[in-house]
């Protein structure tokens, strides 16, 4: 029982954490909470199964293509669903535009790919043990992503420019930073991370259009728990969510496991609205 809670819990938690980071990367660059993160995760699984399973491409080629498709979709999201509503960001029109875009892509996937879950190929031809590749691959992807983002943000000029935009876009623009291009790059990066989540979690979650709703919601929980914009918070929140969800599956089972997750989620938000790792917002008066 403990083995199953740890292996499944950490693996699913890593996928949730990656989706949470996807939300964060898009949010940091634009202050827009884009509801396309779950869509990117869902497409990571579907496109992986399409390229490797159906078209028979080598795993590495399929992997690169999936990430490239994620980046392209991230860019399209920014152009189609985010840029037109940025001027009136206080009206929260991005909720509608990003949600509509995500639903559009989901419906298209349902029509073209089908509404039944389909198998995701085994990525590495090694025998399975209790800690199978379907469990460690999402964890590896999550670790690589968080290390990569830290290096990008702390060690590179582009990364620092991302941080500057996230901190104060007006000041960054005044300093001559190309805000629009940086935002576009952020959405492409988010697209890659989202697709990576779906791809590495594909063996566990299968290639299924319905994963979009689950990933959109359960990926949002670590962001809310960890604090908006905090990638480290999203990782901790995601892994904790996965472990708690799996433990609840064993202890209460059935649909009550989902109820238990929601109860804890609401309780945490009531006690710490800024998230477990977030700081309370202060305002100069």
């Amino acid at each position, binding site marked *: 029982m403990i083995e199953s809670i740890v292996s499944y819990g950490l693996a699913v938690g890593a996928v949730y954490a990656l989706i949470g980071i996807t939300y964060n990367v898009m949010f940091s660059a634009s202050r827009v909470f884009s509801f396309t993160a779950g869509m990117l995760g869902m497409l990571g699984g579907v496109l992986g199964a399409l390229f490797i399973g159906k078209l028979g491409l080598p795993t590495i080629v399929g992997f690169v293509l999936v990430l490239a498709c994620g980046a392209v979709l991230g860019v399209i999201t920014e152009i189609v669903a985010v840029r037109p509503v940025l001027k009136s960001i206080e009206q929260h029109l991005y909720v509608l535009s990003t949600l509509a875009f995500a639903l559009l892509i989901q419906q298209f996937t349902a029509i073209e790919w089908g509404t039944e879950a389909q198998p995701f190929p085994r990525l590495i031809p090694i025998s399975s043990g209790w800690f199978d590749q379907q469990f460690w691959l999402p964890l590896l992807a999550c670790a690589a992503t968080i290390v990569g983002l830290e290096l990008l943000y702390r060690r590179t000029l582009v990364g620092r420019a991302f941080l500057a935009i996230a901190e104060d876009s007006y000041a960054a623009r005044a300093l001559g930073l190309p805000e629009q291009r940086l935002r576009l790059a952020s959405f492409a990066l988010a697209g890659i991370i989202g697709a990576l989540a779906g791809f590495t979690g594909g063996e566990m979650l299968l290639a299924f259009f319905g994963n979009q709703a689950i990933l959109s919601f359960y990926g949002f929980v670590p962001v809310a728990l960890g604090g908006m914009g905090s990638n480290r918070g999203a990782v901790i929140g995601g892994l904790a969510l996965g472990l708690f969800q799996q433990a609840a599956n*064993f202890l209460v089972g059935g649909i009550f*496991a989902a109820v238990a997750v929601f109860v804890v989620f609401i309780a945490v938000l009531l006690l710490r609205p800024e998230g477990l790792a977030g700081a309370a917002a202060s305002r100069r008066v």
Partner: protein
Amino acid sequence: MSIKRRHVLSGSAAGVASLASGFVGPAIAAPEPIKVGYLPALTGPSSSTGIGINRGTELAVNEINAAGGVNGRKIELIVRDTQSDPTKAVNGAAELTKRQKVNIVWGPLNSGESLAAVPLVARDGIPQLHPCWVDSLTDVKKYPMCFRDAPTNQQIGAAANHYVVDVLKRKKVAVVSDTTGYGTASVEAYVPMLKEKGATVVYQANIDAANPDLKPDMLRMREAGAEAIMPWSVNAGFLARICNTRGKMEWDVPIVGQTTLGSGQTKALLEKPEYWNKVYSNNFRNVCFGKDGKLPPRATEFVEKLRKAKIDMGDTLLWWIALGYDGIRLIADTVKAAGSSPEQITEYWNKLKDWPGVYGNITFTPQQHNGFQDDEVVMCEVNSLRDGAFNLAPGYAS
């Protein structure tokens, strides 16, 4: 100008000549076609059933029309693809009954669409034949002209329960479903039926089908002493995960349930082919291979017909094609015997007894518009699929 005999004769001759040559002549009324309004889901998420049934429907129409029709009247199939969408089924039904003035409606072929369309067709006073399983889709008082030539959900559940309790002799049963309306309603309906048969439901749950790990629930089932698992769901991912988890747990327990257990989508998601062993799904006696490895005579003849017509069976199910074929043949036989007015069709069907279909024998009465017979709903071995048909599950006499 005066009319002379010569002019009259020459005019008559020209008239006869033109009539014979076919250029000019009075119209001869062709027999009015039998208009069958047809509402299949040929596209969209529920279309696999519709595409299979459509092959049989088209075969029957072509066969009957090629033989000269019904009492000289051709069958005109007026098709409106519901696109697996109840709204489009309603629009299609309204157009068929009001604008096209069809004699009868065949379909919709999925319960979701029928739930929306049946009340509308009934209100317009057009006879309707459909193959949908939801119990409430026939009601002699609310829908007096609506008939079903397929089993009801009650019959499906009863056949599975009979197999578990009476044939496999398993008395401790785990009954689970996904969280959809179909799943939860099935569990609520079938658990009391199981208890009535003397079985003990040791585990009952509605499980989130999106959960990738079903081991917790399966462990609970085993700890509760379950001797059979009955999952009620049309979600192939959920059903495949149950089979995979059972296999990985090396738990030798039969899985008995709905037809999706034996679908190609479920098979595609199995981690090992042997995880499909000891899995039994609903099927129909007349289209299953018996112990001798042969189909019943009517189905054998039908398969031969399908082969001659080059109709593919490998990517669909034989019972879907047979169901489509039977639907049109039943309509044609009815019009031939009774006529095509709503009253004639309804009156004939209310007295229909043992109509011999490929899919099943149909009997209707004024009080019972569900024509399928209980003993024709059986269970089959899901890992025996060939040519769209399955072997009868162990324990049935051929």
